[in-house]
Structure formats: structure tokens, C-alpha cells
């Protein structure tokens, strides 16, 4: 590193670049690799049950598992159609 950039700090340090890249890729991979096996199955069954009562399609139900520290949150998001059919 040259004397000038030493004083003015123009160049971003590679370690912080590494940290930034890693935090992105790790967050992404945790989401995809660590999703429990039962999630797709759960999603299918939820659709089957809910569509008995409400007209929902496979894309209207989102099942997600989030992890915050020691707490896992299972998030089930169901979008109901504007006029539910009986």
C-alpha cells in the first residue's frame, strides 16, 4: 500500500471485503442448506387442507423457517383470494 493511500485510506481493506462477501453467502447458504426436509411436505399438506375450504393455489402459501440466535421461527404465510369461495 502506498504512502498516500495509507494516509487517505482510499482503498478498502481486503479483510472487510472478505467479511462482507462471507456474510452474504453464508446467510444465503444457511437459508437453502439448512431448511429442514419436512418444509416442502408441510407446504403441500397445508395447501391440500386449506384448499378444501378456501380456493388457494400452490403459490399462495409460503412456508419459511427463520433462525434468530437460539430461537427458530416457522413462518406460514397464506394469501387468501379477495372473494373466498365456500
Amino acid at each position, binding site marked *: *500500500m502506498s*504512502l498516500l493511500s495509507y494516509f487517505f485510506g482510499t482503498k478498502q*481493506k*481486503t*479483510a*472487510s471485503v*472478505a*467479511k462482507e*462477501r*462471507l*456474510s452474504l*453467502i*453464508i446467510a444465503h*447458504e*444457511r437459508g437453502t*442448506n*439448512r431448511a*429442514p426436509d419436512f418444509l416442502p411436505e408441510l407446504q403441500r399438506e397445508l395447501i391440500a387442507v386449506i384448499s378444501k375450504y378456501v380456493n388457494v393455489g400452490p403459490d399462495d402459501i409460503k412456508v419459511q423457517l427463520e433462525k434468530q440466535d437460539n430461537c427458530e421461527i416457522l413462518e406460514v404465510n397464506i394469501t387468501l383470494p379477495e372473494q373466498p369461495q365456500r
Partner: protein
Amino acid sequence: MARVIVVTSGKGGVGKTTTSASISTGLALRGYKTAVIDFDVGLRNLDLIMGCERRVVYDLINVVNGEANLHQALIKDKHCENLFILPASQTRDKDALTEEGVEKVLKELGHMGFDYVICDSPAGIERGAVMALTFADEAIVVSNPEVSSVRDSDRILGILQSKSRRAMEGREPVKEHLLVTRYSPKRVEDGEMLSYKDVQELLRVPLIGVIPESDDVLQASNQGTPAIHLKDSDVATAYQDVIARFLDEDRPLRFVTYEKPGLLKRLFGGK
């Protein structure tokens, strides 16, 4: 039942075997009856690092297959009274390792009065690595402050949390420890290397120690002496601290700060 500790990392060459050798030696020096098992079937190496390569007669696969018993296969360490080495097979492939076989060996070690069993995992996430962590009670995840190593450590943590017996049976999870190795405080100071805090923040695992980058590790492996035995070596001291923290003793981190040179040197001496 002996307490089973896996030393794992995902990536190769980060210091798993060096760490397994020093951790097992350190525990034995503290008076615990300890066995260290090489799970790298096909690429045996722990015997060289422990300096017992010429005394290998039987190996882990022989015991798993019932071709030898544990008493015949275990090699007594040349330095420590309470330390025994179970080498990997060189002639078989990793498929020779079965879950039942490994479980049987671990149970028998428990019956023989072992306090700790250290499982030296092979690199990768294949069968050998999974077998090494399956029965773990605790895991020491070895990581270098470098992108590919940290990413692979995160992968292996995911496998620990899904494929270990403790995870499968819904018991208390495997106790995880992060060990950062090949650490260079100067490069961290210069912004060229991830700090141990960065690595810990990324992996979110409690830190058990930081091992400085050192020529001593090569010196130790050249001689077949675990690094923890070296006299006047920062690496040996750092591993002794790891053992102390493992045994719940309080030890502040050492070898993680770089002494800055004076102002004149910084102005004219560049880096």
C-alpha cells in the same frame, strides 16, 4: 460412556490433525484417559503427526470388521501415559466405515474407562467426515481466517446440526467450539486478514481459542511430536490455553494483538 469430541472443518489443510494431536495430548497431560481416532480412511496421517507410524499394526477398520480387538489396535503414545492412538486404514476406502461399527468402537472405549475420545475428521463432507461427527458430544470446528475455510466451516456446522445423533434424536445439541488457526495479528491489523471476531461473528459459535501462524507447527510435524509439547512456543501455549478453556477454566486470549512499530518506522518503513 466416554465424552466424544470431533475435530472438524470441512476444508482441508486448516489444522485438524495438528489440533487433534495437541488437544488429545493436552487432555492426557491433564490426567484424562484419552483416545484419538483417525477417521481419514485411505489417507492416514495422524500416526505421523503423533510419531507412531512405525508401530501401526491394526487400524480402525480392522476393529470395525472384528479382525482385531481394540487392545491390539490401540497404540500407546510415546510421551503420555494416558494417551492412545487408533490409526486409520490405508488400504480400505471410506465405505468400510459403518455407523454400527463406529458406535461399537466408541462404546467399547467407554467400557475401557476412557474419559475422552477425540475424532480426527477427514476434510470434506463425505462419509468419513459424517461418521467422525455422528456420535459427537462436542465439536471443535477449526477455521482459518480466510473465505473458503469460513464458508466450509459453516457448511460443516449445518451438518453437525442435522446429521449428528444428538440432532437426529432431538437431544441436547452438540456443544460447538470455534478454533481459529494460522492467525496473523499483523495481517489483521493491516486489514489483510479477517479478525477472529469477524470469524466468530460470521459463524456464531463460541470461541475456544486462537492459534497463531507459526513455523513451529512444521517443526513439530517433522519430528512427529504434537505441537503442544514444544518448549517456548506460542503455539504450544495457545493449545494449552484451549485445553484450559475446554475444561471451563478462565483464560484470556493471547497472541491476538500486534505490537505496532513506532511512528518513525510507520512513516518511513511502509507497512
